[in-house]
């Protein structure tokens, strides 16, 4: 039987990988994927608490559905903006986004 700690650790590890990726990756698509990873970590956390929390309740599962829906909307807008950006600049490299500085 898996314990609560193991689920939470999995969530924490995923969250950290996602945050690391979002901060260091060069390709904007990978950055967006990393953000999704962070949201997955949130979902694991919420589901763990909904099942094994101090006072388990259905709210966590409902929260997860909302998080998934909104994450999809966010990434759709992100990709649309990325396409517009690519048409303007011909690059999706984070390091090239330097028209405005300081």
């Amino acid at each position, binding site marked *: 039987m898996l314990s609560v700690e193991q689920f939470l650790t999995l969530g924490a590890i995923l*969250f950290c990988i*996602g*945050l690391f990726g*979002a901060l260091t990756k060069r390709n*904007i698509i990978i*950055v*967006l994927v990393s*953000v999704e990873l*962070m*949201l997955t*970590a*949130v979902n694991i*956390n*919420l589901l*763990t*608490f909904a099942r094994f*929390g*101090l*006072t*388990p*309740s259905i*709210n*966590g599962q*409902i*929260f997860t559905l*909302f*998080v998934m829906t*909104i994450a999809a*909307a*966010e990434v759709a*807008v*992100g990709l*649309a*903006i*990325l396409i*517009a*950006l690519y*048409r*303007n*600049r011909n690059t999706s490299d984070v390091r090239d*986004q330097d*028209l*405005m500085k*300081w």
Partner: protein
Amino acid sequence: MNAMNGLTQLHFSDLWHVMAPEMILVIGGFLILVLDLFMSKESSRRLSPQLGILFLIAAFVLTIRNFGIVADNAAAGGDMINLSNMLYVLDDFGNVFKLLFTAGTAVVLLMSIDFFKHNLEVKVAEYTYLMLFATVGAMVMASALDLITLFVGLELLSISSYVLVAMRRNHAKSTEGAMKYLVIGSVASAMALYGMSFLYGVTGQTNLAMGASTMLQLWDQFKPVLVLGFLLMLVGFGVKVALVPFHQWAPDTYEGAGNPVTSFLAVVSKAAGFALILRVFLWGFSRVFGDIYIYLVILAALTMVIGNVAALTQKNIKRLLAYSSVAQAGYLLIPLATLGKGSSIDNIWLSLGQTVFYLVAYLFMTMGAFAVLTVVTRQAGNETLEAFRGLWRRSPFLAVSMAVFTLSMAGMPLTAGFVGKFYIFLGTINTEMYWLGGLLFATSAIAFYYYFGVLKAIFLKDSSVETHEKIQVPASIGVTIAIGLIGTIVLGVYPDAMMKLLNGLHWFGQ
């Protein structure tokens, strides 16, 4: 209305009773969306913003009606008016913010009419309904009392704003600013959500009102987890209102976005972020606020100092205003931070009054400044301070207006900005946080320096040869500037009326 657990049946009349302004805006947004499909391109471009302003005014009026409903309910001694077991509440805290959002967005749309004429690639109907939906998101953030609903409101505002920033899609800076905003904004949302998941895990509730009492019982046992949750949420919300050190997106996004969108981000989006922060921390963490307020104090101090110092080196006027708006976020956080020292109920009302007063003052001066900036930078063809050189000769009206707005932002007496800052300062004295008040003063002095640079360009320097002709002010921009001027001066000269109104409110429905 009934406190039964489980499912409560919702009737349309209940919904309309509590969320009429939100519903009218949603209906308006969809109406504009559908009408756009049937109208010719020209008439859609002309009518959409006007329809949008009409619906915003309707929402404004309905919100005013809601003050009466709350007052009647409080007089009758009823419970807080709410939907589905405190999922969504109707109180004057939300109402005040809703007035601010609807009025702010209406002024933004007014400014946009001129923006559309000069940016033909912008799809007007899309722009208008996204503005309305973003406003609905902001209103949900001000009224919801449940983490799930708050999160949905926050994302409705954020996602609409990402698209609005990218509206000038052939403009490289615009798409770059939008991309930066989107990436940082979604990382921030993920962090806030991770924080919320810990809050939910310990209290077993997504509802702030019900979670608060559970949290007090479990505070000692689970303090590290709860503080971690609080900090993650603070980071997430801090990004939305551009607190230092989470402000890096703000100057780039503000510079990239079109002027009306920038003023929307600076005023409505920021006010919504503050509504969310106040709602979550005053309700969810109300019982344990004494243990966590120190983080807010640190962020407020950092934001004031770094926001103002970074503004000193800016040559681009939009970036200068962006850093200035970062600094204003620091001032706005002070009333909440001071509650840690004296969180009696009177102090809470006082703090809310200070925050809202400053936000209203900030609305007037920022909208006005961006309206002036739009005309001036367009004529000059660049966005540097040079564009303002000799403005006094070219257009005395614009010159004087800009002087009033910048002086108000700096905190010159007889302007709204001064009164707002003064009330916040009094709050720090009340709660004996003298050093924070001193810092407010010191950083305002720095602010005077860079605002003075703008004034010097306007009045003392001669304009370069090629831009010597008079500036024509379009009607919609002129009206915006006039609204800003009247608001800034009236609130500065005669603030008592506004303060009296704020003091008479039933902030949380009692």
